[in-house]
């Protein structure tokens, strides 16, 4: 297990999350990146690897220019939507474990309020959606809510998953967002509010859907020995893996529409870390839609396939529950920055800096990424 505990997240940074930001995506990305670099206690020019997430903000060269990086040794573009940040942790751990780099910056910024950059239009510029764009968009299958809805519908019909199960995820995330000063949503919700929210794409209601939001987030990942000299206690990447569903670019052609890439990644990550789901004390699970959390919990082995609905009910995901999840509010109630905020939050928890949302004594946790049409990634981290 060559990657186990070879790299640490040494710095975390976020901008304020909001709607209608006056800053460009790149400005937001730079702001978050500087915060993460400062948090690590290093200088911008110490960065020798850059993984910009997505293609909506700056590229590696922009960081060379702005940060005065004299010897950039690694950069990569990981084109898997919301799975990309956790996939980037795997790439960073690999180049840090092999001595290619000392400090890798993973960085993202977005401004979706600007122009016509809305969910229904944006994805059709992304190459991974080309089948959807050619064969489904002309029929009115345009946005992720519609594209993912049949997966959720099938799960409901095959396994008896209910609206209340979806609601349990939404309510847990919202409760946690209320403890977070940097969350867009600040009003409590109940299961009834969820059930009564307007239908977007059956079975997804408004409160099943993540937030369109503006902001930036970044982390610095450092080689384990180098991280020992950084500002904070170390948070080790103990296990990390990625996986893609069969027929990754076309949900319609997938043998099992309800199976995600994380089902392949999870056994690899748990084996690398030498732990099991029962050992996990806090989870930050990519929540583009409530249903995605339920499915990932099943695919990671926290319960049997089809049991994800009952698993999330009865407060298990809430603080004080058996698997406190999305302690920052998640994409559903904090902000949607492609899940880099999930990584930031896990590090905060494992440092013991979770504030009012701190999971008492959290030493081992996980973060997932879910991208595009079901690409997945999982990182298991522990406090040093």
């Amino acid at each position, binding site marked *: 297990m060559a990657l186990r505990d070879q790299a640490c997240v040494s710095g975390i940074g976020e901008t304020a999350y909001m709607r209608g930001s006056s800053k460009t995506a790149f400005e937001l990305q730079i702001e978050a990146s500087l915060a993460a670099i400062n948090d690590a206690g290093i200088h911008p020019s110490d960065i020798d690897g850059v993984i910009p997430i997505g293609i909506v903000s700056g590229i590696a060269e922009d960081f060379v220019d702005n940060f005065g990086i004299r010897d950039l040794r690694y950069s990569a573009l990981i084109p898997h939507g919301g799975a990309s940040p956790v996939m980037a942790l795997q790439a960073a751990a690999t180049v840090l474990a092999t001595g290619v780099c000392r400090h890798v910056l993973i960085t993202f910024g977005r401004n979706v309020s600007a122009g016509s950059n809305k969910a229904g239009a944006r994805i059709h510029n992304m190459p991974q959606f080309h089948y959807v764009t*050619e064969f489904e*968009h002309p*029929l*009115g299958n345009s946005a992720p809510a519609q594209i993912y809805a049949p997966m959720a519908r099938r799960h409901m019909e095959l396994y008896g998953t209910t609206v209340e199960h979806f609601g349990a995820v939404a309510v847990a995330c919202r409760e946690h967002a209320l403890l977070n000063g940097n969350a867009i949503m600040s009003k409590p919700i109940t299961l009834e509010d969820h059930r009564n929210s307007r239908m977007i794409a059956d079975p997804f209601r408004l409160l099943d859907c993540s937030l369109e939001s503006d902001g930036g987030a970044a982390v610095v990942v450092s080689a384990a020995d180098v991280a020992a000299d950084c500002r904070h206690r170390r948070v080790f990447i103990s296990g990390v893996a990625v996986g893609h569903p069969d027929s990754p670019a076309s949900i*319609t052609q997938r043998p099992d529409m309800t199976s995600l890439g994380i089902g392949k990644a999870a056994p690899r990550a748990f084996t690398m870390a030498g732990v099991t789901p029962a050992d996990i004390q806090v989870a930050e699970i990519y929540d583009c839609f409530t249903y995605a959390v339920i499915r990932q919990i099943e695919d990671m082995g926290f319960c049997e396939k089809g049991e994800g609905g009952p698993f999330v009910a009865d407060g298990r995901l809430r603080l004080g529950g058996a698997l406190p999840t999305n302690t920052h509010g998640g994409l559903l109630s904090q902000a949607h920055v492609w899940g880099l905020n999930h990584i930031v939050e896990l590090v905060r928890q494992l440092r013991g800096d979770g504030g009012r949302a701190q999971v008492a004594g959290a030493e081992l946790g996980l973060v997932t990424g879910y991208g595009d049409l079901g690409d997945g990634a999982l990182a298991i981290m522990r406090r040093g």
Partner: protein
Amino acid sequence: MTETVTKPEPPESALSAPYWQGLRDGRLLLQACGACGTLRHYPRLLCSACFSDAVSWRQASGHGHVHSWTVAHHAFHVGFRDELPYTLVTVDLAEGPRALGRWRGATPRIGLAVKAILRQADAAAVELWFEPDGEA
């Protein structure tokens, strides 16, 4: 002022042109590997079973069963605003591949037998729709 609202058009490619021409001719065509015969959908360059790039096109019967479905209540593209709510259905075709289409009929359910309809949407475009097959 009259506002012209258009739907997104399929970005046809050389690879997919026979599929779209098939719809215009009233036929639902699936790509078949020219070497081993494996059927596939949507159109792509290689057969993932034998990696041949030889292609022939085979007409699907149009019969199948509902795999899943959703009802759109929000228009993510302005071209569909006047059609809300509308149902999208994913169908396991009798020949094997799965197809996505619009839906005509009462609320679908998984496993329901369906048949394809090719519907002339405007002068240029033909859309793939499905409806219940036999008694519904």
